[in-house]
């Protein structure tokens, strides 16, 4: 089948399906009624929205006043972030999603992917080392983590996550160090190695690095409005909008599980650190019946026995599932270590081993990419064996 025939199949298929829709309806009258309702509602919201924008603007103004860290990489074109940025800040569209990392959250358009962040090369000199550039996953239509082989899409990267073992360095001198290899799509780096300031890049891209709660965040975009909106949405938080605390202690096991009417579940992935409490690396949340399915799948899993010592091969991270109902919150720690994946909240405090059925419901958004180095997401994708359950 040649390209022309293939395109014809696509055209024909779409036209066939379009013919199935039932047309008709009082769209104009309903739209006018809806517009009137919105006008009445908006009057009451204007004051609140204005206040929120002012608060966001002040937060950005505070950040750009901080001195750059001389140990971080800076290019010759780096300038202090402009205080005029506040004038460009605009309200965040309602469908943008929350991205949270180590006590800082911001919002990006809903179809952006996820990936890593270049790091400072451990070798002397102002060089970056990359262990995977661009997006490695994006939100699938079913909500689950979808891995991509085409990195050329806007993405949010997180420091400390290796997307590949094929790290590259060298050849990037100071003059180029602030310019990422790809300037064809926007990006956000949470935990950036770059210095605070603004840099103009090829293809009309502008890259701005700010610091909040001690965390550097770099945003690169060729759309000034989008850049300003993302920067304006950055805020320091102790508990993010997905309900995840920025840091926590490593839980040994949860309370015993009893049936509950779940309203939502926070999915919080924490990175273990030497000498400090685990830090939130990624978070998302699930609501409604999908949240209930997450709980039910775990609850219905019979208790199991680990066949190894988890302390012999500890992991770099763990996931905390926080189930919320009207009357209580229940935490279920998810361990991902040398013994594989398992829940420590079993009946009478026992252990429940991973099965495809009890893992799939919560591996949504970026969690499949970030949890346990992507092993959970890959397991769901069928790359690794996992009991069906």
């Amino acid at each position, binding site marked *: 089948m040649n390209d022309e025939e*293939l395109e014809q199949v*696509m055209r*024909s*298929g779409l036209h066939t399906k379009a013919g199935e829709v*039932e047309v*008709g309806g009082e769209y104009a009258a309903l739209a006018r009624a809806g517009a009137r309702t919105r006008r009445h509602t908006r009057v009451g919201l204007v004051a609140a929205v204005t206040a929120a924008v002012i608060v966001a603007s002040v937060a950005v103004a505070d950040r750009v006043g901080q001195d750059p860290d001389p140990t971080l990489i800076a290019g010759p074109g780096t300038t202090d972030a402009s205080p005029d940025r506040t004038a460009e800040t605009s309200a965040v569209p309602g469908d943008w999603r929350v991205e949270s990392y180590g006590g800082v959250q911001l919002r990006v358009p809903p179809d952006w992917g996820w990936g890593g962040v270049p790091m400072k090369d451990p070798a002397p000199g102002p060089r970056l080392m990359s262990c995977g550039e661009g997006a490695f996953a994006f939100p699938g239509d079913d909500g689950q983590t979808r891995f991509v082989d085409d990195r050329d899409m806007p993405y949010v990267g997180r420091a400390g996550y290796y997307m590949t073992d094929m790290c590259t360095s060298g050849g990037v001198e100071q003059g180029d160090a602030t310019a990422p290899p790809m300037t064809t799509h926007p990006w956000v780096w949470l935990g950036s190695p770059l210095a605070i300031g603004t840099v103009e890049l090829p293809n009309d891209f502008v890259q701005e690095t700010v610091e909040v709660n001690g965390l550097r965040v770099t945003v690169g975009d060729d759309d000034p409005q989008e850049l300003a909106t993302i920067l304006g949405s950055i805020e320091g938080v102790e508990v993010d909008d997905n309900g995840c605390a920025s840091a926590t202690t490593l839980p040994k096991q949860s309370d015993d599980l009893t049936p509950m009417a779940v309203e939502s579940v926070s999915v919080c992935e924490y990175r273990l650190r030497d000498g400090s409490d685990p830090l939130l690396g990624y978070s998302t949340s699930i609501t409604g019946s999908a949240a209930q399915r997450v709980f039910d799948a775990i609850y219905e899993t019979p208790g199991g026995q680990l066949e190894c010592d988890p302390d012999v091969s500890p992991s770099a991270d763990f996931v905390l599932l926080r189930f919320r109902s009207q009357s209580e919150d229940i935490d279920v720690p998810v361990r991902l270590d040398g013994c594989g994946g398992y829940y420590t909240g079993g009946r009478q405090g026992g252990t429940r081993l991973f099965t495809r059925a009890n893992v799939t419901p919560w591996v949504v958004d970026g969690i499949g990419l970030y949890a346990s180095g992507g092993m959970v997401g890959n397991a769901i994708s069928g790359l690794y064996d996992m009991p069906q359950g």
Partner: protein
Amino acid sequence: MDVGVASDDARVGDSADVRDGDDFDVWVGARASSLLRFAYLMTGSQEAAEESVQTALTTACEKWSRVRRMDDRDAYVRRMVVNAHISRWRTFRRREVPVALVQPGHAGASGPDVARGVTEADRVWRLCASLPPSQRASVVLRFYEDLSYREIAVTLGCREATVRSHVHRALATLRATIEQENSHE
């Protein structure tokens, strides 16, 4: 008198509202079916399509004095349909997964050509269901609305290269699906 001036202004405003309202009704009457078909291909269900179109038309109605002066009102509203769908998708996608229904053929239609057409349409439908919203929009705008890559990029507010990439990947997936299924037949 001040009152008189205010009254005159109000009448002028009312008259403009009526004219705008008539204009809006005429435009919606002419374009609603087309928008609904586009939204159906975008969302995969009648209910979601109607909701997306209604959301977009409500916004268009609010801004009609500006929208009506645009060269390409359809493109503007199609973009709102896409945005409304993405917003809805983010909110409800974990609870609702549109299922591709096999619709009965037209009365009297039968035979291998019809069966082949249904099979290929369903392949295309399954492919669309697997795509994220912006990629799906690129495919629908390209092969249903017959827009150029540049026009699609303007409609979706993204770069032309992104649109080309979306379409290319979708076609590659469709080709692989067809070849795989043909090899099993």
